């Protein structure tokens, strides 16, 4: 087995994770991600006891919240942490191209 992922494979996972990878980081991630994934593949050898699965440790018998208006955050406070805003609007760069 190869000791590293291909460039294309790393580019693919980086795209999924929405992280840009520079050329000088590429080689490092090719090796490191491969090491982790090799460890992960060990799961294929595990023999299961049964077919049930568990998403969270305990399910609490919880009811849905009542559909009532509760406390809300103040827009002014929220905007304090927003990197770019214009009045009460949060600014984002172009989403659709020309």
């Amino acid at each position, binding site marked *: 087995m190869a000791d590293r992922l291909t460039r294309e494979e790393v580019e693919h996972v980086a795209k999924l*994770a929405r*992280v840009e990878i520079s050329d000088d980081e590429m080689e490092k991630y090719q090796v490191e991600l491969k090491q982790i994934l090799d460890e992960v593949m*060990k*799961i294929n050898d*595990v023999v299961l006891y049964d077919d049930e699965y568990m998403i969270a440790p*305990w399910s609490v018998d919880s009811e849905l919240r009542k559909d009532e208006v509760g406390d809300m955050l103040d827009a002014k406070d929220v905007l*304090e942490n927003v990197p770019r805003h214009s009045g009460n609007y949060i600014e*984002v*760069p172009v989403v659709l191209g020309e």
Partner: protein
Amino acid sequence: MRYLDKDIKEIHELLVSKKICPLDLVNEALELIEKNKDLNCFITVDKENAIEMANRLGEMEVDKDNLLFGIPIAIKDNIVTKGLRTTCASRMLDNFIPIYDACVVEKIKELNMIIIGKTNMDEFAMGSTSRTSYYKAPLNPWNKKMISGGSSGGSAVAVGARLVPLALGSDTGGSIRQPASYCGIVGMKPTYGRVSRFGLVAFASSLDQIGPMTKNVYENALLLNAIVGRDERDLTSSDKEKEDFTRLIGEDISGMRVAIPTYFISDIVEKEIKDKFNELKETLKKKNVIIDLVDIKYLENAVTLYQIIAMGEASSNLARFDGIRYGYSTPNPTDIDQLYLKTRREGFGNEVKRRIMVGSYLLSGENAQLYYNKALKIRDDMKKELMKVFEKYDLIIGPTTTTTAYSLDSDLDNPLKSYMDDVLVIPVNMAGLPAISIPIGFSNSKMPIGMHIIGKPFSEATIYKFASFIEKELNLDLNPERGDKDE
């Protein structure tokens, strides 16, 4: 005169009899933090508000029934505090000022405890050495050349060095218990759902739990009393009735049944840790504790499970860091994709990027079926195996870690090493169980060794009972400033 090294009960009596006031405690904590700045255990110290709060409390009558009144506490920097910078030790949140308090922070404020500051950690709690912090890594108070452990390293150091009596940490795969073991303190990961996660910056939501880190067992139980309870804002929080976790402390432990998994004392554990643990086993036997070795299947799969489940959940939870609503944002992005890609490249450190890349990959397309679903099935099997043991035994015990704290200079780039540090503590998170680490002695190089006590769901009081017996029996001097320190 030092007060913060005293037991909380003693400090409380001094407060009640007006021999000291809360400001004395705050001043001492601030002085000690300043003097020990090189330990890097705080990211933010909230001097102004701590002094103001202490002054306010000084004018009030001390609540005689509230042992935590006026006591300084440190909070891990992934638990949000209104108006007080909360960074998760990441460049991504370097400038983030939360606009609300976490549930546990509300509770701490209601009890009139004084928040001194926010503690250092691995970035987004991802790591086992606290070296993935965007800030400088915390140093072990027993030997400054050694790691603190992680991810709650700053909290462990702050308590271990006696800068504050109490701290909160969070534990996703051992992040309270492992640094507690490395720094010679007591750290409890409560049962999943005991403590509301509202306001804990999510890493892996089905594993995360907030818990107390303290000098001793009694104070740990006391702090747990303060933070538990159902919270409508975290629907996984448990509606179990409130109980006093200190109530069984000091009770007789003879006749209790305890299991030691063979894997926990296998060759993966250093000999001097096993020796210390075996010594203790003899003490327990003399006390008529029934101890059996048991084989528990799937324990050796813990790291693989953690990698799939924790990274999968993390990749989803960390998708929120987009450079739009809060936190770091890359300057002058040309379009929305550039904004995401560059913000996340510049804002996240290497360990976080590695984990979210692997997590995204494992959840994508048919991989979800191949790996993630299989992991959920093994997780279920592991829990069933553990619960089977609890049909016959009250507790499961073993060493907390396979080694003692190691050198700060060791290789950080090995992506697997940090998971292996947590091999003994991860199964507890997978099954949602409560577990504590308590100090049981020192290695030849005078580094603390910890013991891990795991209980049935919601059996924290029983764990404290057992832990307090050992603590009393060993009667260790756990102040790194005194005798045992290796210079």
